[in-house]
């Protein structure tokens, strides 16, 4: 059960080999003996994290989860919940950045980004929400991005996919009001990870550990939207209202 200060006893991580997910799981496992299911396309890549959880006194299982195989989602969710009892937290942390130069010119490449980041997440979110509702409690943390708050031309397939995910997660969270299940949307700025390796870091860049810390703090407060770093909230409030004629010419 999640306690009054947001500490978690059991979690399902979708995207278990993502660095943000790993930092979050490590932070959770440090706080409490954590039972966690790490779901990844290649479960072996989640093995080091599983070992770290066990070293901290928890239990971890790495399982295969193919986000792009939408048909598999319902069975997957049911198997996890049936086998593991109450799940306090579901972390949706899978996603692809794509190559913006390709997704701008290749329809299949664009669709692949949108499919993984938005379509697959929507599908699995609904399945997870259903089981959490039956449980009568639970938290869903969705890794969105400031890139979804206002889509930029520099990677519009990615930005749009996060915009879709963000809206879906917010709507789901509102629909779940009163059910005991909460949704927290996390909007990091540029995060230094292997996914962004080689890219020029944007101002107000952050780290997976900082995102993890923000998630834990948000869980304690019962926050519904979290920016990392928190100052991005005000930056984006301005960015969202820049006239289009100005925004579309920015090289960001």
């Amino acid at each position, binding site marked *: *059960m*999640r*306690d*009054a*200060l*947001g*500490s978690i*006893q059991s979690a399902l991580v979708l995207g278990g080999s993502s660095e943000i997910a790993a930092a979050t799981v490590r932070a959770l496992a440090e*706080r*409490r*003996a954590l039972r966690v299911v790490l779901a990844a396309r290649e479960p072996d890549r989640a093995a080091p994290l599983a070992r770290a959880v066990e070293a901290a006194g928890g239990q971890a299982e790495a399982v295969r989860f193919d986000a792009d195989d939408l048909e598999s989602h319902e069975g997957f969710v049911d198997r996890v919940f049936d086998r593991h009892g*109450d799940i306090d937290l579901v972390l949706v942390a899978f996603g692809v950045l794509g190559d913006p130069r390709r997704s701008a010119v290749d329809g299949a490449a664009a669709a692949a980004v949108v499919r993984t980041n938005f379509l697959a997440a929507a599908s699995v979110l609904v399945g997870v929400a*259903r089981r959490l*509702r*039956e*449980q*009568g*409690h639970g938290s869903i943390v969705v890794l969105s991005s400031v890139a979804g708050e206002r889509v930029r031309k520099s990677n519009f397939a990615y930005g749009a996919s996060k915009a879709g995910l963000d809206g879906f997660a917010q709507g789901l969270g509102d*629909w*779940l*009001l*009163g*059910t*005991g299940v909460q949704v927290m949307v996390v909007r990091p700025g540029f995060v230094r990870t292997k996914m962004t390796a080689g890219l020029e870091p944007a101002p107000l860049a952050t780290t997976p550990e900082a995102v993890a810390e923000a998630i*834990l*703090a948000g*869980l*304690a*407060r*019962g926050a519904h939207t979290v920016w990392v770093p928190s100052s991005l909230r005000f930056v984006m409030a301005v960015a969202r209202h820049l006239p289009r004629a100005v925004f579309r010419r920015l090289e960001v």
Partner: protein
Amino acid sequence: MSSVATAAPATTPSRTSVEGGTRLLTGWGRTSPSLARVAAPGDGAEVERALAAAGERGVLARGLGRSYGDAAQNAGGTVISTTGIGGLDLNLEAGLVTAGAGVSVAALTRVLIPRGWFLPVVPGTGEVTVGGAIASDIHGKGHHRGGGFAAHVVAFELVTPTGERLSVSREGAPAVFAATAGGMGLTGVVTKATLRLLRVETSSMVVDTERAADLDDAMARMEADDSRYRYSVAWLDSLARGARLGRSILIRGDHARLDQLEPPERDDPLAPPDGRALAAPRWTPAGLLRPSTVRLFNELWFRRAPREERGRLQDARRFFHPLDGVQGWNRLYGAAGLLQYQLAVPFGREGTVRAVLERLAASRWPAFLAVIKRLGPEAGPLSFAMPGWTLALDLPAASHELAALLDELDELVADAGGRLYLAKDSRLRPELLPRMYPRLDEWRAARERLDPGRRMRSDLARRLGLDR
């Protein structure tokens, strides 16, 4: 208890046991809400039916929801609201009353005081049911001399998860009695109880107030004089640091005798007080209670208290239930809610109380209420009280940084041979439970006989591993 008007419209697959009539439930701290189907039986037979109809997520009885954490909620399952289980049967010649489990302490004292009787143990609020008082084995302000609530329970009726209706007395069914008193509702549903009463001559208390300069001073005074008073409590300034750590106001008293009243009042010695109640506003901005405001309040509160005052008369209900005058005071903590950290440590471990207060004072988080009492004999295996000191602190539940600090304090308490009060707890981790409650296996054995199918479930039980 908070409730939300609209639950999400949803199809309900056969797996779920949460149907219509659901409510989002929390404890008094308004943290960790969970959804349950709420049934409201009016008597023992209806309780039996509700228990029999329990789904795979089990059942739990809930009274007036004054436990601070998740003791009286059951996510995804059924919660039996006992507040409709009334009934009051006075047997004043024998000094006894038999009350339905849903009858509140406030209702009982309203009936008893005008007749010259009182309950030997009352909690800090009158809004606690008889069933809840037994489930938490509440200790009150007189535990150092009078023991806890269950010590004055002659017998209670327990509807068990296996469908029996047992009449349980300490002599007749000692293991069931001891596992249920303090058993947090996990052995079954208490439907009524027969309580031994205390004779009183007036509705007033005669109260001595004194200030203590620091923690050592407070504890020394309590150790020296508590035996002279039926009731004793010290209100601490939790933000005082250094030399003033633990500066406090000691409030100690007893029921006033007739001859202790002023002559005009002796004509109507059992008169009730006027019943004005304030209410905390419906919505309060978060951060109303912060170090600066708490410090200001504490300063005013301490200046107001007399340095020393003997023999003041005070109405009994105001003495025992001071906060009941402010309805919904828990809302002052805003949306994040509050938690209460209440520990007990054996006599001789005063250093642990000091260490807890020091660490709290050094942190940014203000404890708005801090109270110390002395406790008497231990009771059932999951019952909180042990001969020693208890310290209770109200804290805002807004920060996960507080989580690390409280985890550390748990270790201090456990190392000292102490424990936390499950009726107040909302964040203890399960590994500490067997250390804090060394007779846990004794409790599990009794529960195994009463509820082998684990039909009685609560969020607290899930969190602390009591459902295994």
